[in-house]
């Protein structure tokens, strides 16, 4: 996972919150900046910036953020004002509400997805509970085409 530089990490909006591998957190995380989780968290994440759940991370709780990217395991709902993205190794059990959704080949999503209303286009879709399991393919390293409901 790309790491931020020292200058990025200490920006005016506040330092990025990082929870490393081997760290267990119980409770709710609130951040005015980006959040990256590589450990285990039982609780909600509320971030003004982007939220990234690393490949070995396990999160049990809701996530509120701008862009939410899942490489690891999440059991909880996602609310993203930007895009919610489930990557090759990502697994999400919960509902997603966001302006855009992308599921890469190999990514697992069990739950409901809902597009946020975009005033200019008035696009709003809500699907019934569904299970999408994208089978691993030979081209896992290449991101699959974004699926936008």
């Amino acid at each position, binding site marked *: 996972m790309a790491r931020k530089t*020292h200058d990025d990490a*200490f*920006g005016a909006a*506040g*330092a990025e*919150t990082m929870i*490393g591998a*081997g760290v267990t*957190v119980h409770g709710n*995380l609130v951040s005015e900046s980006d959040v990256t989780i590589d450990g285990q968290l039982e609780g909600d994440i509320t971030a003004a910036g982007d939220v990234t759940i690393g490949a070995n991370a396990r999160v049990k709780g809701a996530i509120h953020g701008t862009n939410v990217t899942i490489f690891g395991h999440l059991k909880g709902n996602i609310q993203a004002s930007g895009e919610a993205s489930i990557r090759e190794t990502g697994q999400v059990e919960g509902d997603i509400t966001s302006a855009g959704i992308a599921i890469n080949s190999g990514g697992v999503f069990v739950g409901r997805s809902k597009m946020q209303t975009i005033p200019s286009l008035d696009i709003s879709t809500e699907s019934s509970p569904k299970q999408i399991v994208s089978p691993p393919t030979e081209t896992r390293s290449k991101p699959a085409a974004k699926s936008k409901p």
Partner: protein
Amino acid sequence: MYYYIINPAAGRGQIKNLQDQLRGRLDKLGIRGEWVKTTGPGDATRLAKAAVASGHTTIVAVGGDDTVNEVINGIESDNVAVGIIPIGSANRVATQLGIITWPQACEALAARRLTSYSLIAAGQKFFLSTLTLGFETDLDKTIDTTKPGLRARAKQYAQSLGHARHYSSLKCRIEVDGQFTLNCDLFTLSVANQKFLNPLADNRLIVALSDRPKARLKLGGIVWKTLRSGGQGTLDDTATTRFLADRVVIETEPPTGIMVDGKVAGRTPIAIRLTDRHIRFITEKIVADFKNAIGPRN
């Protein structure tokens, strides 16, 4: 008027040789002021308190980190400006404020650029810069890292790396703002005021910690940075966990010593909080330098 609190023992007594040059420089800049010398540990706190009580609004610590910490512990008014002339063996606070040499410090005192920082309280003690615990604190107790020279540095690195290989991580529990609790194995931990690292950021505690890396190369990197960091610990990109807080309570198993700016200042468990006490520092850091580092957020 400027009030200079001089630690005659700082930097192995180098003020003796510098005194005339320093006074001459301050005279030229028109900021000579009043000079007092400390006579022992804790004296700078007493002198700073007395100076504020008698109406001085600019106190200058002439010494190292110990002198600066003693001075700020004696100032309880928000209207006082604190300056530093770094002549100590360890000048981490001054370095963080962008002040490296004493002639540069004199210019900075005359220019009088002020930045206000909240003090951090660790138990009953106040500090401005960095608190560390874990491997770095243990290292300071066992290996003399003050000797200069390439050969001495190489020996220090080899000894430190050997020490790191045998150092057992601590079991650590941190309660953060009453909102969440963090459990982990701890190799090294640092706490500082975020604003101290970037004057444009808010006053908040930044807590950075890391577990012992499995790869030897990474361990070597942490040891190298620890030796070079000058008390900054893992605040840079070697930290694996980092978050902001206003108050943290740190417990370790087994209990361990904590260091403030390179000096042992207590043991765990300890509560660390950002206080309402502000100190206006005369700094060389120019805010414009940080604007480029931040850049527009996408």
